[in-house]
Each structure stands twice: as C-alpha cells, then as structure tokens.
C-alpha cells in the first residue's frame, strides 16, 4: 500500500462517472473548475454505455455516451480516476472538504496501453464476463468492452494464474504486476454524489426461477443481447442457443412490491421493456413478444406514442401479475397469471422470459462522510432537503446529488438532474472561494 500524503486540490469531487456524474463533471469543468471524477469501475460511462438503444427515440445509447465520455477523458479541467473510491470525507469550517481517495491497482499503466488486446489474446484464462452479465466469458487480462474509457487493459488479479503471458505479449511493456493500492487525500470545495443505482436481484423472488431456469433472464441481460457489442451472435436462449420465438416480459420485478422491500415504481421498466420489445421485433421478426404488466406508466414526452407504436407493431400487452413460472423439459417456461381483464387464472407457454428488474439505490454513500450526516429518504436514496427549491440540495451544505442517486429516473431526467447539481455546485464553489460559507 502506498500512502501519498500530498494533498491534491480540486474545486469539485464528483463521485460516480455514469451519465449523471459525467454530465455534472463536464458542466463544472466547462465553467473553469478543476474536477476530480472518480468511479469504482474500470471505465467511465456507467450503465448507460452498456445499453442498446434509448427510449423513446431509439437512438443508439453508445453513440450518445461515447462522445461525452471522450470529452470527459480529454477535458483539461477533469481528472478521471477509475477503480477509485472516496471515503472519510470531512467538511471543514470554511465549507470545503477533504476526502481520502483509494485507487485499486489495474496492473496496467493506462497511459502506455495502446488497447492492442495482445495481452487478451495471450491470456489463457476464461471467466464470466461481468460486462456481459455472465452470458459469455472474458480473459483475466482484458479490456472491459470495446468502447470502454479508458480503452486500456486491466488484469483481473483474482482470476489471474500469474503465468506472465500477458506481460510477455505486451509490445509497450505497460503491464505492471508491482502496482499496489494507492491512497491519498484531496481537498475540494464541493462534492457531487452521482453514485447511480443498482439492479434488483431477482433471486429474491424465487417463484420466477431466475438462477434455476436458464431461460429466465434479466432485462439487462437482454439489453446486452440487443447491443452491438453483444455476447452472442444474435438473441439466443441461454439454455441451448435456440433463437427464441415467443418471449415474455414480466414487468415490476422488484418494483412496487413491498414483499421484497421495494415499494416504489422504478420509473423506467415499462418503457425499457417496450423498447426492448420493439427491438426484438426487429431482431427476430417472427417472434411473439408479450408484456405482462400491472399498469403501463408512459408518463414522459413521447412515451405514450412509443407504447402505442409497440402495440401497432404487434407487441402484446397483458394486464396481469405473474404468480409463478415453471420449467418444461425442453427449457420452455409456463407462466401462471391472473388476466385482470378476464378475471381468469391462465397459463401460457413461452420459450424465454425476461424479468424487467427494478432499480435500487446504491448503498454506502452515507458512510463516506465522517463529520456530517448525509441523510437518506425512506427508500434509501439520497435525501433531497428541498426538492422544490433545488432538487440537487442534500442535507449537507456543499454536497449535491445528481441522477439516480436521488431516486429512480430515466436518462434525460438524470442529465437534467446533473445540470441542477452542477449549477448548484458551481454556485457553492463561488461562495466558498469568496469566503462566504461558514458551517
């Protein structure tokens, strides 16, 4: 472990480099502020960069994200640190902050890596690729995905056999197994919490069989199957590689369900499922797609038209809560549900089921602060102290929240939220710089 005692100074610390954190960092940097943007992952871009397309425009998600990610990487006012987390954040009397920054070793000198993937080719190991949500494998020396930023290799040391093949293959000698965890303290004038969300774990609803039935997958796994950087050559059933022709979606899996501790609506599942259904109609023209829903919440601009478009394309919407899934010997799945429109308990067979999983708050944000209490709302998202006056304000002066860290929202709302957070943060930086803040 290296302890670097030199304090580095920034105007803003942005925690989380997804679309909200990235947007907030860019806004602040464009105003002339020095920004430290950190992410615990190996790449910036968050979950958005992993998506196929966005609703309701069906624009390519990566095509929107990558220019932004590239701008972040090249901005002279932004320092990006991946595999990095903040902790022990202290607010001083003058309103500024100090934070302990910890960077995990990547075992690759990012600046020297050309992204040639020769290390990847040489690596003999195959492990589950977390960026493909376990559907295919990756090497232990790997680039997370083709549009990752930085597009540099990393060594998964937990799965590395230390054979040294990557190091021998590397033409720029950028692989360095002597790297260790680095810790140092930074000072900053404001903190933006853009810690994003996590997906609901569907194994908490055992009656849906996720983890037991191979053809029950999550919406994020389907998202990866529909993305250009997909794990399979096309959309396939994980049980046997068959092209599915009758796919069911179960909406509200882990949303609006008190029994699993997630009573609120995730805001995005209806529309991303509708989007995926439309994309599947394109990828598998002969397939039947059925969405089982409680209510379709098409509340945003263009959402209802998007829903109507899916209906006109032939996507079937069935109002009914699925009670149970059982698996047949051939891998097909029987869904038992109550059709609300007819009042009858019905069973239907599908060859693949997608669970439209809800979104949950990322944990641990409150523990980052030592002498201030960053409060959470009843659903464990960062509490907005004055949502009408400023949705970015938190219970700590100088700490602002952006994106889904404050609650479920879609991409445009996350960007809007990041705009609010960055303008509030810029204002706070100005006040701190003028010594107008006392806490």
């Amino acid at each position, binding site marked *: 472990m290296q302890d670097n005692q030199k304090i580095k100074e920034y105007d803003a610390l942005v925690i989380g480099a997804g679309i909200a954190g990235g947007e907030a960092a860019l806004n602040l940097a464009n105003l002339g502020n020095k920004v430290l943007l950190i992410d615990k992952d190996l790449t910036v871009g968050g979950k958005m960069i992993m998506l196929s397309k966005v609703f309701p425009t069906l624009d390519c998600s990566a095509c929107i994200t990558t220019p932004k990610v590239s701008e972040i990487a090249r901005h002279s006012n932004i320092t990006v640190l991946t595999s990095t987390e903040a902790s022990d954040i202290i607010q001083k009397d003058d309103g500024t902050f100090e934070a302990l920054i910890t960077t995990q070793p990547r075992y690759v000198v990012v600046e020297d890596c050309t992204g040639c993937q020769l290390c990847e080719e040489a690596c003999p190991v195959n492990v589950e690729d977390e960026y493909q949500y376990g559907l295919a494998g990756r090497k232990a020396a790997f680039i997370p995905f083709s549009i990752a930023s930085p597009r540099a290799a990393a060594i998964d040391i937990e799965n590395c056999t230390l054979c040294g093949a990557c190091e021998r293959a590397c033409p720029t000698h*950028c692989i360095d*197994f002597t790297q260790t965890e680095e810790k140092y303290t930074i000072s900053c004038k404001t903190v933006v919490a853009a810690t994003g969300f996590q997906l609901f774990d569907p194994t908490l609803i055992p009656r849906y069989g996720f983890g037991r039935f191979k053809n029950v997958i999550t919406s994020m796994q389907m998202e990866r199957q529909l993305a250009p950087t997909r*794990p399979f050559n096309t959309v396939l059933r994980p049980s046997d590689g068959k092209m599915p022709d009758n796919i069911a979606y179960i909406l509200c899996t882990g949303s609006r369900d008190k029994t699993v501790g997630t009573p609120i609506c995730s805001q995005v599942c209806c529309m991303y499922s509708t989007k995926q259904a439309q994309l599947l109609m394109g990828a598998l023209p002969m397939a039947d797609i059925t969405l089982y829903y409680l209510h379709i919440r098409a509340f945003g601009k263009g959402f209802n038209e998007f829903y109507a478009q899916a209906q006109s394309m032939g996507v079937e919407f069935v109002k009914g809560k699925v009670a149970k899934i059982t698996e047949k010997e051939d891998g097909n799945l029987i869904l038992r549900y109550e059709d609300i429109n007819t009042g009858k308990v019905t069973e239907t067979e599908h060859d693949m089921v997608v669970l439209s999983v809800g979104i949950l708050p990322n944990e641990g944000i409150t523990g980052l602060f030592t002498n201030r209490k960053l409060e959470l709302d009843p659903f464990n998202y960062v509490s907005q102290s004055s949502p009408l006056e400023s949705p970015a304000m938190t219970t700590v002066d100088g700490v602002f929240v952006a994106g889904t860290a404050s609650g479920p929202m879609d991409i445009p709302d996350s960007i809007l939220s990041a705009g609010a957070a960055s303008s509030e943060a810029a204002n706070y930086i100005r006040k701190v710089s003028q010594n107008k803040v006392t806490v």
Partner: protein
Amino acid sequence: MSNGNKKTVLILKEKRQVPQKVKDNLKYFVKIKKEILKALKDKKMTVPELSEVINKPKDEILYYLMSLLKYGFVEVDGIDDMDEYFYYKLKDNG
C-alpha cells in the same frame, strides 16, 4: 513493464499464491476448448449437436462456444432448416 530485467509477474508470484479454483477453472476451460474445437474440426455443428458429442449440458456449451466466438476461434455458418439453431464452424484464421 519490466522491473530491471525481471518480469513483474515474477515479483508478484513471490508474494501471491494462485488459488486452486483459479487453476481448476483454467484446466477446465482448456479441456472444453479442445473438445469443442476438435468436434468442429470436421463439420459445422449446432449447440445441441455439440452438447451430444461432448456430453456436456447445452447451456455450458453455449457459454464456452460464445467465448470462443469472441476470441476468434469459431464463427457462425448459417442456421438450420427450422430457423432455430445456428451452425458454428472453426474460423479460418489463415
């Protein structure tokens, strides 16, 4: 990056043991990779066909086959008459 003339992996090797499950995982991958590539040497096959030849579950075959597709060892070669299963063959890497 070399540390003097010594490869840095050797420095880490002195401090770190490779867990047995990592070694076992590598061994298994090498074995199944060989089996899949051997089966595809003579003719193109679907996942169920490979599963029968290699005597491994279809989901496992798909997982490793898709990994091999990604690594450039195999490629898609059409779909069966029922439009259900794709055929996979060895990739001609010159």
